[in-house]
């Protein structure tokens, strides 16, 4: 449980720093690129320590999908932080778990149980409730 708490604490601080980057008017492209390079560098140390690098051609498509979606996803997320609360934006990002669940049902033909169906139905409702009020400019 100790490791889990530490994992949550560090991950949460990471998202808070995205908001800080917006407040300090940092360059989103540099923030995104440097953070990705830092993660890649850190994991490369672990791969070197393990002593094996397993590359499979099937992996290529998956890493392209992952890389493109994480880069543009976090770029949109950072832009959204300029207009809304970090807490609500972070919840929205976490609710994206709905998409792989839907993919499991429609692509991999997995049959969801009643709990999952209820969870899926609640997500759109919570997305609507979480919506930030858009400021209306008058005049």
């Amino acid at each position, binding site marked *: 449980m100790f490791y889990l708490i530490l994992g949550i604490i560090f991950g949460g601080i990471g998202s808070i720093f995205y908001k800080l980057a917006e407040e300090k008017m940092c360059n989103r492209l540099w923030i995104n690129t440097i953070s990705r390079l830092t993660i890649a560098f850190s*994991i490369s140390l672990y791969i070197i320590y393990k002593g094996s690098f397993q590359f499979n051609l099937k992996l290529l498509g998956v*890493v392209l999908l992952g890389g493109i979606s994480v880069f543009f996803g976090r770029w949109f997320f950072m832009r959204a932080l300029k207009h809304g609360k970090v807490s609500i934006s972070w919840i929205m990002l976490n609710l994206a778990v709905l998409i792989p669940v839907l*993919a499991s049902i429609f692509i991999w033909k997995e049959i969801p149980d009643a709990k999952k169906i209820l969870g899926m139905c609640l997500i759109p409702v919570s997305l609507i409730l979480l919506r930030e009020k858009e400021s209306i400019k008058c005049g």
Partner: protein
Amino acid sequence: MWLKLILPAFFLEGLLSISQKLIRELDLGESRNEYIFLYNIVAAIIGICFLIRTKKAPQKKDVFIGSIIGLMFCFGAFFCLQAVLELPGIIYFPVTSVGSILWVTFLSRLIWKEKLRKTQICGLLLACVSLILLTT
């Protein structure tokens, strides 16, 4: 404006989760470290391509905050990987997802005094319930 920006972020985060699911579906579990390394390299290359076009030099704050974000997510992932080895999935997955959103909500309240509207508090509670239902 916020909604126009957060919705693409939501869908793209979902695509990232699909790529993580593909690792299991394509039986690539042995290459998961290589997957994390390579998808971050792909993202960094995309960033570098844009940066070459814009020709903007980084400022100290960009390098500092960018590195902190990277390190925080790295440590977070490392500790979560340790936790997933120790704890059953029925505890690990709901606690991670719900804990993360509650922790960020707490920090944003503490640092920026962000207040949630009543409907947003209901949305937060519903989000917690739906995440628990989906991950157990």
